[in-house]
């Protein structure tokens, strides 16, 4: 079909051959074509961060991004890691995931995958973030239920846990 593009994409360690419409977003490809439903559709215009994933799209360093804003075909050959790649292979929770549970940072949970993704990236870059740095890294993720207090506490707890573990 003249509207379609074929390309390869590796998602959470699995290689896929994708056929998608030229304008389809990476989020639509992940959820509707590949059945990868960890990243969520909150707004589809890059304001809520519920679709945040980490990706290496062949254009530089791997980074976090909103999957709803990436035309999927531009990610051809890329490597995408969703929330499913966070945590251990046997379902063990990462320290960030564990902290979100311990601190009550999850209510409806629709924002949680995006927050965990962004928070995991923050702690990889900055193991001892101040509260301000946490906010600066996470203001692309909206939450409507929690008012953010427990989310900030969770990131601080995860950072502290990680620092203590590596001592």
């Amino acid at each position, binding site marked *: 079909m*003249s*509207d*379609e*593009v*074929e*390309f390869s994409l590796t998602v959470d360690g699995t290689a896929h051959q994708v056929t998608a419409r*030229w*304008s389809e*977003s990476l989020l639509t490809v992940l959820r509707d074509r590949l059945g990868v439903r960890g990243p969520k559709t909150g707004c*589809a*215009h*890059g*304001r809520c*961060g519920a679709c*945040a994933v980490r990706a290496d*799209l*062949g*254009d*530089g360093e791997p*980074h*976090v*991004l*909103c999957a*709803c*804003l*990436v*035309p999927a*075909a*531009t*990610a*051809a*050959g890329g490597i995408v890691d969703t929330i499913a790649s966070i945590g251990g292979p046997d379902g063990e929770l990462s320290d960030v995931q564990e902290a979100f549970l311990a601190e009550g940072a999850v209510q409806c949970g629709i924002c949680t995958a995006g927050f965990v993704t*962004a928070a995991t990236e923050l702690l990889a870059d900055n193991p001892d973030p101040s509260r301000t740095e946490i*906010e*600066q*890294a*996470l*203001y*692309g*993720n909206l939450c409507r239920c929690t008012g953010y207090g427990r989310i900030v506490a969770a990131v601080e707890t995860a950072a502290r846990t990680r620092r203590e573990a590596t001592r």
Partner: protein
Amino acid sequence: MLLAAPRFALPETVAEALTALAERPEAVVVAGGTEVMPDLLWRNRSAAGFVSLRRVRALRGSTDAAGDLVMGAGTPVAALTSAPDAGLRAAASSLGTPLVRTEATIGGNVVSALPYRNLLPTLLASGATLELSSATGVRTVPFDGFITAPGRTRLAEGELLTAVRLPRHAGFADYTKVGRRNAQFVATVSAAIVSRHGGARLAFGNAGPTPLRSDAVDAVATALLDGQAEAGDLRAAVAGAVDPPEDAVASADYRRHALGVLAVRLVTRAAVDAGMGS
């Protein structure tokens, strides 16, 4: 060319990109997609194909060239948050969100050509120039005047914006914007300053249909920096020079007022930076 389809191309060079565009006249250039994708969703534009610049390596990265900071048009805004220019750093750091900045590009910001886009006042105040490439060669134009109306530029048919050049200077530069909340907001209004050799150049966002600067405003700003004018003089000069929109976000009166306030504050910061007191 990494991928080619009737309605999609993933070129690896500028030349391939230009060819791909020529072959797909109804396709739209997409860099990060952070503006194009919402535009399609909201039906602000229609398109019949994409030519993606993501894999054109030559468009990414910054270099120093003869006193200019030369940034490939496909350079992500996140990379500019550590640029050697303070005004650019400030403008890049408050663009969108941390998730958007990794994909949004300086070229996309320029070509969207909307008066509230984050990087544009800094480019205007700095006297930036733009490299436009086509099959027939490269031309350089000043950023000032490149945007002719909201969403309209002087980019010709068959041309791609390939680099943005910012004159380097010793001096003070800054950017500030106001909105309806404290993070992740489109500028209600914004302002940039470049100050060197005792002079001040200001540029404004959402102060009119295109990014705006004024020699008259700069004269008063320089005088204020020099202690030869009052803050009220600069506010009045700004109010006279701008023609901001009235909409549901803010009134034109508020915008006019806020632009004047931002202008004075930026000049104050320049003065403090130059050791001229607060």
